[in-house]
């Protein structure tokens, strides 16, 4: 008898779970079809490809990151070779300068042209690298901006469908504003600052004027400060404003739920079921759009970031290794040139951070 009761209970529970699931699945499919009108996966993929990304809409974060790592592994030997070539050339120049100074000391006849020749040779070796890296950084920032024009509205539309309308508007506006600011600053201020820093560093290494060194340091500080202020201000604003917007959205949804509760029972049931279905479908789609966006952003900047970092490392290593054999302004110049790559790396990283922070903020916002 008890086994029969258990079997009946099991069947009843199965029916109770399954029956509501069927119309719910159908409604989810209807909601997903409708939400699909808000987000065109193919258009997003195409926009990502146009900006240099390689993400597929609908793939998981693990698959996307795995693909980026595989691509990075394939390209890494070539990038290392490029960076190492410059680093080795610098090292050779510095070592030759060291040898020349040793000969000078041994012979007792001064050769004041040795440091100047070292500076000119270092500048000649690094000029093409610097132009290439600056162009690369510029391209990444404009590619990110172009991609953001397509990604952010889609992300905002889906986030708004989850009920977080205020938060969605806030995140999109903040990301677009900061992206535009970064793009304007890039051409109008940051690139001139980087070139100014390099010029001042080269002039200091050639002339030995401490004022030029201080000016170079000031320009580097100014560029770093601008990037830091933008990054800190943006993340801080996003965090604080998202919290406030979340409270406003929660209040709006509670008001809507209260209004629904006053409707005719059948209508109220349809309304609340539809709202929950849209919420659930939008939540899933929000995750999909967010993952696609993150993988795209990472794939757009993986090569530039690797290239900049490897060049930074190569120049820094050359300066460090040569400093033991030939300490002086020429070795310090190589170190300062590596800072220029670090600045461009910071700019590239910031452009990616703006989009990533907006996407992560949208995904992790608590659904109302």
């Amino acid at each position, binding site marked *: 008898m008890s086994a029969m009761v258990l079997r009946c209970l099991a069947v009843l529970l199965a029916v109770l779970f399954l029956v509501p699931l069927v119309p719910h699945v159908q409604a989810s499919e209807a909601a997903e079809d409708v939400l699909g009108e808000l987000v065109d996966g193919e258009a997003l993929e195409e926009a990502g490809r146009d900006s240099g990304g390689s993400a597929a809409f609908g793939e998981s974060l693990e698959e996307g990151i795995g693909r980026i790592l595989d691509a990075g592994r394939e390209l890494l030997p070539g990038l290392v070779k490029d960076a190492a070539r410059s680093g080795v050339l610098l090292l050779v120049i510095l070592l030759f300068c060291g040898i020349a100074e040793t000969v000078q000391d041994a012979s007792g006849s001064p050769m004041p042209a040795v440091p100047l020749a070292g500076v000119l040779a270092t500048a000649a070796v690094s000029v093409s690298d610097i132009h290439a890296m600056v162009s690369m950084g510029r391209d990444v920032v404009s590619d990110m901006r172009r991609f953001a024009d397509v990604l952010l509205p889609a992300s905002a539309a889906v986030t708004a469908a989850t009920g977080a*309308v205020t938060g969605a*508007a806030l995140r999109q506006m903040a990301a677009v504003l900061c992206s535009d600011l970064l793009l304007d600053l890039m051409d109008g201020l940051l690139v001139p600052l980087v070139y100014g820093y390099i010029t001042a560093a080269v002039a200091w290494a050639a002339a030995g004027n401490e004022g030029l060194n201080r000016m170079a340091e000031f320009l580097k500080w100014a560029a770093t400060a601008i990037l830091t202020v933008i990054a800190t201000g943006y993340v801080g604003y996003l965090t604080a404003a998202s919290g406030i917007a979340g409270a406003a959205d929660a209040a709006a949804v509670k008001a809507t739920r209260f209004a629904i509760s*006053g409707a*005719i029972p*059948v209508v109220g049931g349809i309304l609340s079921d*539809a*709202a929950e279905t849209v919420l659930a479908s939008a939540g899933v789609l929000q995750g999909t759009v967010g993952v696609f966006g993150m993988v795209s952003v990472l794939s757009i900047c993986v090569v530039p970031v690797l290239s900049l970092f490897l060049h930074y490392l190569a120049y820094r290593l050359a300066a460090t290794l040569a400093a033991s054999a030939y300490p002086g302004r020429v070795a310090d110049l190589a170190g300062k040139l590596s800072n220029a790559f670090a600045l461009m790396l910071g700019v590239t990283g910031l452009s990616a951070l703006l989009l990533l922070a907006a996407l992560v903020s949208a995904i992790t916002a608590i659904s109302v």
Partner: protein
Amino acid sequence: MMQFLRDWLLGVTGAALALAVLKTLVPRGSVSKVCALAGGLAVLFAALQPIVSLDGDVLAEAVSAYQTQREEFQVQLQENRDAVLGRVIESRAAAYVADKAAEMGISCRAEVTVSDDENGVPVPWAVSAWADWAPGQQEALGEMLERDLGIPPQRQSFMERDE
């Protein structure tokens, strides 16, 4: 804002560069110290001058423009969300009508349109149904629509399946 930053940095950099060149050219001694003091004051002036002449109204206008744009965008997002919700409600309500009609022995296709009520909540507003109607079926379905969905007869349309 960007132009302001650019002008400021260029001014300070130019003053510092001029000071560096001056210190290189001027011979050591009391003249060099006087030049260093004058140059330092020039750099200080270049650093402070744009800040002193900063127009606070420009910042207030920029903030106001940003807020206006954000509010407009928020309204647009809300409208999109309401449109999505409305279409799902229409789909669910149409399915409900078809299910209820089937219980009455009526095989029909229904379309429901929604409209915002006084609280701004989208509710079923009008219904159109297509079927091969038997006598009395339209009245029975109409009563159910008015009772369950609150749709009065004047917003109910019954048409033959071929229409």
